[in-house]
C-alpha cells in the first residue's frame, strides 16, 4: 500500500519540478511567504492552475494505477472501475484542452470548462495528494478521503486555501453501485394514464376514493364535460400509495375521448394546480406512457451520473429481456432496500392474486359438480318424458283404431315386438347376461371389501415361473405368426403361378 501510494507522490514531485523552469515554483514560494498579498494571490493562482493541469494528468494516471492495484484484491469490478476511471479522466483532460483551444475567442466558454476540470482536479487531489500538513501525514489523510469517497459521503479536505470537495453517492469512486432492471411501460399517450403518488396509506385512499375523485374533478376546474376515473391503486413503501387515473372528456355531439397523458400532466404541473394537489397529499405526479425509441436510445447510450460506462455496457449485455426491460442504476444501500421492499410487495400481490385464482378454481369445481348433477337429472327426466310420450301415443292409437279390424302392418308390428321381447327375455341373451354381470359386480363388491384388507404378495419363485411361462407363450405366438406369414406368401405364389398358367394356355388355344 505504501509503495503503491508513494509512486503518485513521486510523480507529483516530478510534475512540480517540471513546472519550476516556467517560474511556477517561484510563484508558489511567494504565496507561501506572503499569503496576504492580493497581487501574489491572483498571479500564483493562474500559474498554479497551469501547473496543476499537467500535474493532474500525471496524478490521475498514478492514482488510477494505485486504485486498480488496491481494489484488485477486492473484486474484479473494482479493477475495472479503477482502470476505466483513470482512462476516462485522461480523456476528459484531453477534451477539455481541445475545447479551450477551439473556443479560445469566447470569454464565457473557458469559464465553464475550467470549472468542470477544477471539480475533477480537486477530487483527484483530495484522493491522491492532499497538501494540508506538508509531510507524510497527508498520506493518512488521503486514505481517509478515499474511505469517504468509497462510502459516498463526507468532505475531502485537500488544501488549506481551497474549500473541501463534497463526496456524494454519485461520485465516481463510490463502491455501492449496481444496476437493476425496470419494466418499460407500454401504454400510449392516448390512453391518458397519469400516476399520482399520495403520502397516505392505501386503506385511506380506498376509503376516501369517491371524495378523492371529486377533489380531483374540482382541481381540473369542475367542468361537467370531464370525468375522473381511477385505473388502479397500489401500495408503495413508506405508507405511500400510487393512484393511476385518466380523464374522459365528453363532446357536445355525444362522443367521448380520453385526455392525453401529456396534456393532463402539464395541467397538473402548473404552480397553483400543483399546490392544490399537494394539499390533497400528492407528492409526485408523472405520466405512464411508453418510451419513444429516441428516449430509449438516449437512456442506453449515456450512462447515468456516477455509473461507469463499462458497467453500463455490461448491464445492457446482461439484460434478460431487452424488449421489455431497461437498466436502472441502484446507488447505495437505501436504494437497494427500497427496491427490495417493492419486490416484497410485488410478491405479496402475486400471492394474493394466486389466492383469488385458487378460490375461483374451487368455485369452478363446485359449479362443475352441480352441472354434472343437473345433467344426470335432466337425462332421467328426458327418459321419463319419453316414456310418458310413448304412453300417450299408445292410448291415442288405441282410441283412433277402435272399430277397425287389425291391419297387416299392425300384425307385422306385433310379430316384431314379440320377437324383440323373446330375445330380451331369453335366459342366455341380453337380460340374462346383464343380470349375471350385475350379480357378479355385487359379489365382487362384497368380496373386494374383504380383500382390500389383505395385501397381495407374489413369491419370487412364482414370479420367475410366471415370467418363464410368459416367455414360452411369447415364443409360441411368434412361431405361429411366422408360420401364418410364410403360408400367406406361399398361397400368394401359387395364385401368381396359376394366373400365369391360365393366361399362357389361353393364348395357345386361341
Amino acid at each position: 500500500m505504501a509503495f503503491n501510494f508513494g509512486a503518485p507522490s513521486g510523480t507529483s514531485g516530478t510534475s512540480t519540478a517540471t513546472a519550476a523552469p516556467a517560474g511556477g515554483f517561484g510563484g508558489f514560494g511567494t504565496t507561501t511567504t506572503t499569503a496576504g498579498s492580493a497581487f501574489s494571490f491572483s498571479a500564483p493562482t493562474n500559474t498554479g492552475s497551469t501547473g496543476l493541469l499537467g500535474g493532474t494528468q500525471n496524478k490521475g494516471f498514478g492514482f488510477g494505477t494505485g486504485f486498480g492495484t488496491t481494489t484488485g484484491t477486492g473484486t474484479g469490478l473494482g479493477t475495472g472501475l479503477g482502470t476505466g476511471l483513470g482512462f476516462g479522466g485522461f480523456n476528459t483532460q484531453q477534451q477539455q484542452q481541445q475545447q479551450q483551444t477551439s473556443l479560445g475567442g469566447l470569454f464565457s466558454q473557458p469559464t465553464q470548462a475550467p470549472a468542470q476540470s477544477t471539480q475533477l482536479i480537486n477530487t483527484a487531489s483530495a484522493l491522491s495528494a492532499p497538501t494540508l500538513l506538508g509531510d507524510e501525514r497527508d498520506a493518512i489523510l488521503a486514505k481517509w478521503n478515499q474511505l469517504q469517497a468509497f462510502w459516498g459521503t463526507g468532505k475531502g479536505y485537500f488544501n488549506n486555501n481551497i474549500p473541501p470537495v463534497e463526496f456524494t453517492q454519485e461520485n465516481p469512486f463510490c463502491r455501492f453501485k449496481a444496476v437493476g432492471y425496470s419494466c418499460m411501460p407500454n401504454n400510449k399517450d392516448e390512453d391518458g394514464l397519469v400516476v399520482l403518488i399520495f403520502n397516505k396509506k392505501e386503506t385511506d385512499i380506498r376509503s376516501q376514493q369517491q371524495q378523492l375523485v371529486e377533489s380531483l374533478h374540482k382541481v381540473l376546474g369542475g367542468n361537467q364535460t370531464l370525468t375522473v376515473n381511477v385505473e388502479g391503486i397500489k401500495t408503495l413503501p413508506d405508507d405511500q400509495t400510487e393512484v393511476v387515473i385518466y380523464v374522459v372528456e365528453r363532446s357536445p355531439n355525444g362522443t367521448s375521448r380520453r385526455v392525453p397523458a401529456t396534456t393532463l400532466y402539464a395541467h397538473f404541473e402548473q404552480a397553483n394546480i400543483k399546490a392544490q394537489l399537494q394539499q390533497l397529499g400528492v407528492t409526485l405526479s408523472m405520466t405512464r406512457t411508453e418510451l419513444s425509441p429516441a428516449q430509449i436510445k438516449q437512456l442506453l447510450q449515456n450512462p447515468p451520473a456516477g455509473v461507469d460506462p463499462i458497467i453500463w455496457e455490461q448491464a445492457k449485455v446482461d439484460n434478460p429481456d431487452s424488449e421489455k426491460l431497461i437498466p436502472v442504476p441502484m446507488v447505495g444501500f437505501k436504494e437497494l432496500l427500497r427496491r427490495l421492499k417493492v419486490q416484497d410487495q410485488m410478491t405479496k400481490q402475486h400471492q394474493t392474486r394466486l389466492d383469488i385464482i385458487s378460490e375461483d378454481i374451487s368455485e369452478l369445481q363446485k359449479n362443475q359438480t352441480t352441472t354434472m348433477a343437473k345433467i344426470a337429472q335432466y337425462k332421467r327426466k328426458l327418459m321419463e318424458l319419453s316414456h310418458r310420450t310413448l304412453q300417450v301415443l299408445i292410448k291415442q292409437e288405441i282410441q283412433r283404431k277402435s272399430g277397425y279390424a287389425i291391419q297387416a302392418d299392425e300384425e307385422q308390428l306385433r310379430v316384431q315386438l314379440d320377437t324383440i321381447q323373446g330375445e330380451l327375455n331369453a335366459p342366455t341373451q341380453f337380460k340374462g347376461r346383464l343380470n349375471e354381470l350385475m350379480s357378479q359386480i355385487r359379489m365382487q363388491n362384497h368380496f373386494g371389501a374383504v380383500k382390500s384388507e389383505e395385501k397381495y404378495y407374489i413369491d419370487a419363485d412364482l414370479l420367475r415361473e410366471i415370467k418363464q411361462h410368459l416367455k414360452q407363450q411369447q415364443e409360441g405366438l411368434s412361431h405361429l405368426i411366422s408360420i401364418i406369414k410364410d403360408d400367406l406368401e406361399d398361397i400368394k405364389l401359387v395364385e401368381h403361378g396359376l394366373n400365369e398358367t391360365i393366361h399362357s394356355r389361353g393364348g395357345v388355344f386361341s
Partner: protein
Amino acid sequence: MFPSMPYVPASMASQELSSTTSTTTTTTVTTNTTTTITSGFNLYVRPPASPWLNNTGLINVASMPSTMTVNSIVTPVMTYGPLESMANNWHYQLQEQEKHYFYQANQFNLWNQALIESGNEIALLYNEVERVKIDQSRLEQELDIILFQQKELEQMLTPIEELLKEQNGPLNMMYVNKEYEMIYRLAEIIDAELKRMSQDLKDIVVYLNSLAHPADATEQLEQICKILNAHMESLQWINLNSGVMQKKVEEVANAVEEYRRKEQEAMKAAFE
C-alpha cells in the same frame, strides 16, 4: 500555526482533528484527537425461505442491515500510526460491506427475473380461469334452455294424459280394442325394459371405470396384465389371419379344380 479543521460528519465515523505546533525550535509535534470508532457491524444474515402458497420456492427478503453500534473512545494523545491502522481496518470493513452489497444486488436481479416470470405465468393462469368461467356459464345457459323445454313438454303432456284417462273407460269392452291394447302395451313394456337395461349398463360402466383406477397399485401384476393383453391381441390377429388364409386356400382349390376340368375337356376335344 496551521488553522483548526472544522467538524467533519460521516455516516460511519466522525473525527475532529486538531494539531498544535510547539513554538520552540524543536520538531516535536503533539496531536490531540477525538475519534468515534464504529464497531459491531451487523453482517447480513440470510433469513429462512418463506414459500408461497403453491410452493414456487421464491424467497422474500425484507430486511437489510440498518443498525450500527457506536462506542465513543476519547484518547488524550493519539499518533498517526493508530489512525492509519484504524483507516486500514475501516477499509477492510468497507470491502466486506461491498461484497454484501453486490451479493444483495445480484440476488435482487435474480428475484426480479423470477417475479417477472411468475407474473407472466399468473397472467396466463388467470386467462385460462376466465376462459373456463365463460365456458361454464355457457353450459349453464344451455342447461337452462333444456330445462325450459322439458317443462314445456311436461305442461303439454299433463292435460293430454288427463283427457285420455277420462275417455278411456267406456271404450274398454270390445275385443278388438283389447287386442290393440295388447299390441301397443307390448311396445310400452319393451321400452321400459330397454331403459332399465340401459341404466344398468351405465352403472356397470361406471363401476368398471372406478375399478380400473386402483389397478395401478401392483406394478408387477400390471406388467403381467400388459403382457397377457399383448398376447391376446396376437392371438386375435392369428385367428383373423387364419380365417383369411382358409378363404384363400378354398379359392385356390376351386381354381385348381376348374383348371383340371378345362384340361380334361381339352384332351377329349383333341382325341375326338
